């Protein structure tokens, strides 16, 4: 049933595809983390943006990622914006998860005691310094686990990029299957790869969490 020789043969091809999956994950997540933070900050800094931003966030969260991927890849060209498959896919992943991340950041900011903002005002700190030195260093460590969960979730959604023929793991496994008529090994290997990467990421997140939450003992 399981062909080890075939497994070894397809491993290098799958490994190359894994690099694409990891790239898509990392770029997509950096985009999500940064864009999400920007959305959360703008919402606080410019109060009138709260409503439009929450509509945008709701819109993105309430529609399937696959539709957003298709939208960027197939619909944007009719508006004169043509993106290659990888860019469209990564952009869709980033924007989709930015919506989720922005809510996580918002919760983090909401948890900062009002006195911290007031002390910053009383010390005449600028808005930028207040965010950079006072609010963000306190708001981020507690939300690292939540952001980390989205990193893993985003990673597990990269196979959706196969729908627009990005040569990531899933697409590559499908191609191998259709060319050799053997699906067992490629699909199983892809599953195992995702399992391992998810477990490794979870361990990293826990380590980061411990590092960030280090506080002097009382």
């Amino acid at each position, binding site marked *: 049933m399981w062909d080890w020789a075939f497994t070894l043969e397809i491993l290098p091809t799958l490994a190359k595809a894994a690099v694409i999956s990891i790239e898509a994950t990392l770029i997509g997540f950096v985009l999500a983390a940064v864009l999400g933070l920007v959305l959360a900050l703008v919402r606080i800094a410019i109060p009138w943006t709260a409503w439009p931003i929450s509509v945008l966030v709701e819109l993105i969260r309430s529609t399937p990622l696959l539709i957003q991927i298709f939208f960027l890849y197939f619909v944007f060209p009719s508006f004169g914006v043509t993106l290659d498959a990888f860019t469209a896919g990564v952009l869709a992943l980033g924007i989709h998860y930015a919506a989720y991340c922005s809510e996580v950041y918002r919760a983090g900011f909401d948890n900062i005691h009002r006195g911290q903002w007031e002390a910053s005002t009383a*010390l005449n700190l600028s808005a930028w310094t207040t965010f950079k030195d006072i609010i963000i260093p306190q708001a981020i460590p507690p939300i690292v686990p939540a952001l980390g969960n989205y990193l893993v979730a985003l990673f597990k959604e990269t196979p959706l990029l196969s729908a627009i023929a990005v040569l990531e793991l899933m697409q590559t496994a499908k191609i191998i299957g259709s060319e050799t008529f053997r699906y067992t090994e490629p699909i199983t290997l892809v599953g195992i790869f995702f399992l391992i990467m998810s477990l490794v990421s979870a361990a990293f997140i826990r380590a980061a969490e411990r590092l960030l939450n280090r506080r002097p003992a009382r």
Partner: protein
Amino acid sequence: MTDKPMVRFDKVSKRYGPLTVLDSLELDIHRGEKVAIIGPSGSGKTTVLRMLMTLETIDDGVIWVEGEPLTHMERNGRLVPADQAHIRKIRSQIGMVFQSFNLFPHMTAMANCIEAPMTVLGMKKAEAEARAAELLEMVGLGQKKAHYPSQLSGGQQQRVAIARALAMRPKIMLFDEVTSALDPELVGEVLQVIRRLGSEHDLTMLMVTHQMGFAKEFADRICFFYQGKICEQGPPKEFFGNPKNERTRQFLHAVLEAG
């Protein structure tokens, strides 16, 4: 510039919805004066400090600091609501110490004290640290520079907060019930620091306090607030010795009975 008050509340009102917290307040505070604000809860006394620190907006009137409007700015000879740059400029003369300390928990005592001097005043790190070390020494915490707030007692945290505010070299210091959150045995150390500030520095001080004994001994003037207005004010001796207003008498009776 004969004798411009350091702070002037000129018919200042503050409302929260239908509730008027301060009603057309008129109050002048002179350079170097130490004013204690007392009154029952909800009388608007903390709001006075918060408005002066620009933590609250005002609904009517103008607040002046050393003859310059704080809440407003002059444009074409008229006073218009101040923009952020103007507020920051005038606000730089004011420092505030809070009831709940509000130290930055992720920073050491030293880092708390150099953050604003470096980022707002543009001081070099070494210079800011030297100044902060002096101030921490003055509040009796020279040995605790590298401690985080969570490693300090309430009284120590409040003393760091005082040093932090002083590091910005304010001319006016606001103390908002600074001993209310402290265990009784820690109140003295904080009051001692404030006493020292009063005698060694040329600071104008406004404090909201429940420590009648301290107010009596320390302040030049007591202002008693009731329902958003100054009900009675005067030098401590007169105020405590011979209160004229019935409300004042009732309040003092209740407070002194309890304390």
